[in-house]
């Protein structure tokens, strides 16, 4: 386990400002997301200490705004639980136009995308469950 992930793991389950206690699925999804992010933390990517999580079901898309800086490289990693057979991530700019991601990663209940914004400002990350049962997801952002 990369040392950069230790603070994040220590805070596992506690970083939910004012939200009710996390379900087992949410805790599992967060653990899976941190493991996924750990695979590229060695390449110099730093985790944003926060995360975005919630429930999701097949056919549903969840959208969150992130504010990014041109010049930085970003990696977004999402994970769910084994109840989800396939999840996907997509990125949109502030006008709503999709950004093509070269070599996106997708394996079962995990997915990741990396890109370098050409302009600073708000972007939108969409999490979708394509196959499987209703469960929880967790999205993590890394940058360098």
């Amino acid at each position, binding site marked *: 386990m990369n040392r950069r992930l230790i603070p994040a793991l220590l805070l596992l389950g506690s970083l939910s400002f004012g939200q009710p206690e996390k379900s087992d699925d949410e805790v599992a999804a967060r653990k899976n997301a941190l493991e996924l992010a750990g695979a590229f933390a060695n390449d110099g990517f730093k985790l944003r200490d926060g995360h975005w999580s919630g429930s999701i079901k097949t056919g549903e898309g969840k959208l969150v705004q992130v504010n990014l800086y041109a010049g930085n490289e970003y990696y977004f990693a999402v994970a769910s639980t084994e109840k989800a057979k396939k999840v996907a991530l997509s990125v949109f700019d502030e006008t709503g136009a999709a950004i093509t991601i070269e070599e996106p990663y997708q394996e079962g209940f995990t997915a*990741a995308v990396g890109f*370098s914004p050409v302009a600073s400002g708000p972007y939108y990350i969409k999490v979708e469950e394509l196959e499987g049962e209703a469960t929880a997801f967790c999205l993590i952002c890394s940058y360098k």
Partner: protein
Amino acid sequence: MLPRTRDFAASLALLCGTVFAAAQSAPLTAEQIKAAARTDDFSIPTPGEFMAALSKVGKPDWSSKTRPPIPTDFPDRGQRALNLGTLVADGYLAVEAESKQDVKNIGKDIIALAKPLGVSEELISRGKSLTDFADEGQWDVLREELEATQNEIKIKLATTGDTDLIALVTVGAWVRGTELIASHVAKTYTKEGAQLLRQPGIVDFLAGKLDALPDKLRDEPAVKRARVKLAELKGAVSSPRENVADQETVKKIHALSAELVKDLSKKNLK
């Protein structure tokens, strides 16, 4: 399943320097964009991320950006929270400047300011870590500690029912970070540097949070001042996507943010 690092290394190699232009998915509608979630801890970058971006386009003299110590005994809770945020940004500045003493002093001030908000107990061990890592010159670890410190403050405020103060900590951190970046870009203007100051989503989110505060908190002088200045900053940091702020605009961003940071630190603010 954990992906193979090699796969990621290949992906990372591809993304370096790559500009992605074409679109594949259907575009989002205005309604979808409006309804997108926005959260304090995920949507808003830390001052450290902001400074990391600037360090790629220039070599700021971070040590020249430090300020004299601020009071830590403000009477109003809102003003305490706002200044707590500015101090967190000062912590990142001290780390970038690799100033051990500043890291230690700021750590102490953060604890002193947090105490009346009921947060200090959790931060004492964190403060010790900051001191230890500063002594050892572990700057990368310190950056992570500061981010964790900021989150720990917010978690504690949430658990004590002070969720309204979380937004104020974020506003303080953001405005001090903006002041620091704008100060550098105003003096050594480049389009790449000015591009970093385009932050319409952040200022929109923070202004919305301040507008939604309870009347009592919103009427505190420091919070009122923050609302007014944020409204002024909004225009300056919201240039169209295809344009980059010119040097005059950057100077304006610096002046507005510096004025707000200075005002927030005044004990008898009216």
